[in-house]
């Protein structure tokens, strides 16, 4: 059933499972656990539709590189699936190899432990399992890159696809407008007793369950754990001071531009670093997308005016002179985008700001940093792609000055993929959750979502998130 928590004054039932967050992870877990016979309480802090009041609770401080955390997430039923692009590419076996990055261990599980859940995840994301993942172009010479094989979800909007199933499920009670405020532990501090939740009228109620799962995403999950500091001053699950550390994104680097010999041959090429190249060069993975620009694009409320002036600048061939005002590409240009793996890095982290939201919870402070490993990855991938593209005869690449001059700062953007802040590690000194996604030192608190990624690979995170949720469902139903 589906309830507006603003209209309720009490929850008198104790559930088998309490899930906090109704994004792709929360909804997948709720439906699958309910289907296995568990009673589920699903909590969503936002409403059923977007509202600026709810969204404003995602405001963060930022002391590092800007990652736009308010705009890249959505705080209402269905979460960020309400605006994701749908691109899917699975993790590979090499993502789970026992490699150390920045002195931190990688995944403690093997690829074979999540691979069985790939078909199930593909079905949830409306992908054709028999078709699999396909490349749109051929190979490059040089043996550094393979054609990137991926699939496109419609994209699946979890709210519209699953709201009826959740409403009709006898095993699920879903409360929206229910903001989680605190996790309360028992006297031993090893078991979660209940979670305190508040509605928009600031009425606070306890939600009781046997098992609790946080599905709040890569920024809110650590923020919530750090805010739960009434019983343990460092926050819940933070014994090793790892909650919030190792914030990772996928790096979108404007590496440069390219000229093509024959524009009829392609409008877009997508490549992916192969394992041999990454291992021999000791660098991260990456997708490299080369696109020919068809028209000037702009976004926002003054889109028409901005598009007009940008088009005019292109016609007058003065784009170089006005690009300091607004970055844009002219029709006919070939642009290069990337989705580069960022290595886990203790200095890239989420902490609590001194500012508080309307519920009295401290806001997150995001200090996004890249490491020397990431800089080497970026430059090595750019150089190799430029050389291989030249060898292919397809055209030639002009690299941005920061790609060739190591004294210059690298320009990079984000992909709205927030990962690693409650990372999985066998040893509690290097992570927050164990191989079963259970918070170290706590008996009944689990975390699902991209915050548990030990390393981020270079694939879009939604599908691996779903795979890990199906694996967690499997684990919890066996207990």
């Amino acid at each position, binding site marked *: 059933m589906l309830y507006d928590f603003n209209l309720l004054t009490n929850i008198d039932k104790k559930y088998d499972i309490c899930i906090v967050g109704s994004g792709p992870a929360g909804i997948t877990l709720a439906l699958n656990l309910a289907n296995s016979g568990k009673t589920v309480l699903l909590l969503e802090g936002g409403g059923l539709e977007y509202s600026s009041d709810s969204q404003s609770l995602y405001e963060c401080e930022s002391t590092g590189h800007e990652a736009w955390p308010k705009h890249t997430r959505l705080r209402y039923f269905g979460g960020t699936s309400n605006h994701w692009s749908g691109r899917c590419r699975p993790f590979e076996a090499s993502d789970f190899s026992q490699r150390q990055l920045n002195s931190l261990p990688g995944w403690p599980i093997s690829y074979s432990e999540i691979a069985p859940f790939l078909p199930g995840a593909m079905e949830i994301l409306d992908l054709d399992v028999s078709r699999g993942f396909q490349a749109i172009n051929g190979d490059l010479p040089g043996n550094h890159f393979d054609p990137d094989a991926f699939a496109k979800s419609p994209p699946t909007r979890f709210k519209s696809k699953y709201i009826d199933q959740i409403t009709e499920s006898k095993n699920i009670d879903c409360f929206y407008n229910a903001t989680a405020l605190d996790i309360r532990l028992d006297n031993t501090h090893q078991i979660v007793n209940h979670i305190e939740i508040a509605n928009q009228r600031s009425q606070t109620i306890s939600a009781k369950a046997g098992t609790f799962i946080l599905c709040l995403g890569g920024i809110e999950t650590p923020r919530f754990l750090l805010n739960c500091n009434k019983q343990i001053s460092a926050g819940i699950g933070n014994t090793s001071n790892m909650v919030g550390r190792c914030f990772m994104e996928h790096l979108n680097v404007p590496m440069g531009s390219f000229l093509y010999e024959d524009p009829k041959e392609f409008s877009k090429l997508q490549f992916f670093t192969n394992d041999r190249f990454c291992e021999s060069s000791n660098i991260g993975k990456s997708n490299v997308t080369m696109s020919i620009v068809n028209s000037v694009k702009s976004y926002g409320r003054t889109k028409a005016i901005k598009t007009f002036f940008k088009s005019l600048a292109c016609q007058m061939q003065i784009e170089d002179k006005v690009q300091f005002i607004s970055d844009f590409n002219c029709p006919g240009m070939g642009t290069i985008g990337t989705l580069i793996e960022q290595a886990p890095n203790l200095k890239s982290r989420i902490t609590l700001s001194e500012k508080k939201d309307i519920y009295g919870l401290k806001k997150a402070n995001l200090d996004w940093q890249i490491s020397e490993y990431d800089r080497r990855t970026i430059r090595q991938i750019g150089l190799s792609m*430029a050389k291989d593209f*030249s060898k292919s005869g397809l055209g030639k690449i*002009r*690299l941005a000055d920061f790609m*060739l001059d190591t004294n210059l700062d690298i320009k990079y953007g984000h992909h709205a993929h927030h990962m690693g802040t409650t990372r999985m590690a066998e040893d509690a000194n290097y992570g927050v959750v164990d191989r079963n996604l259970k918070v170290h030192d706590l008996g009944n608190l689990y975390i699902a979502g991209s915050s548990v990624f030990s390393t981020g690979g270079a694939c879009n995170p939604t599908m691996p998130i779903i795979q890990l949720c199906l694996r967690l469902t499997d684990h919890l139903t066996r207990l």
Partner: protein
Amino acid sequence: MSETVTRRTILTAFCLASLPIQGATKEIKLPNRNTEFLDNVLPIDNEFIAVDGWVIPASNLVKRVK
């Protein structure tokens, strides 16, 4: 001032008059095209160079020099 002597005439005369002065005080350097070109060349490895950021086979440069 005569009606035919406009502001533009005065400015033009001033500019023309200042040209020889500039020529006398400033050493005129003829651009050395090869030097400027080589300033923008960055060797990448045995096979490739970057010219003004364009990554091209080093053999292209050899052909050009020849």
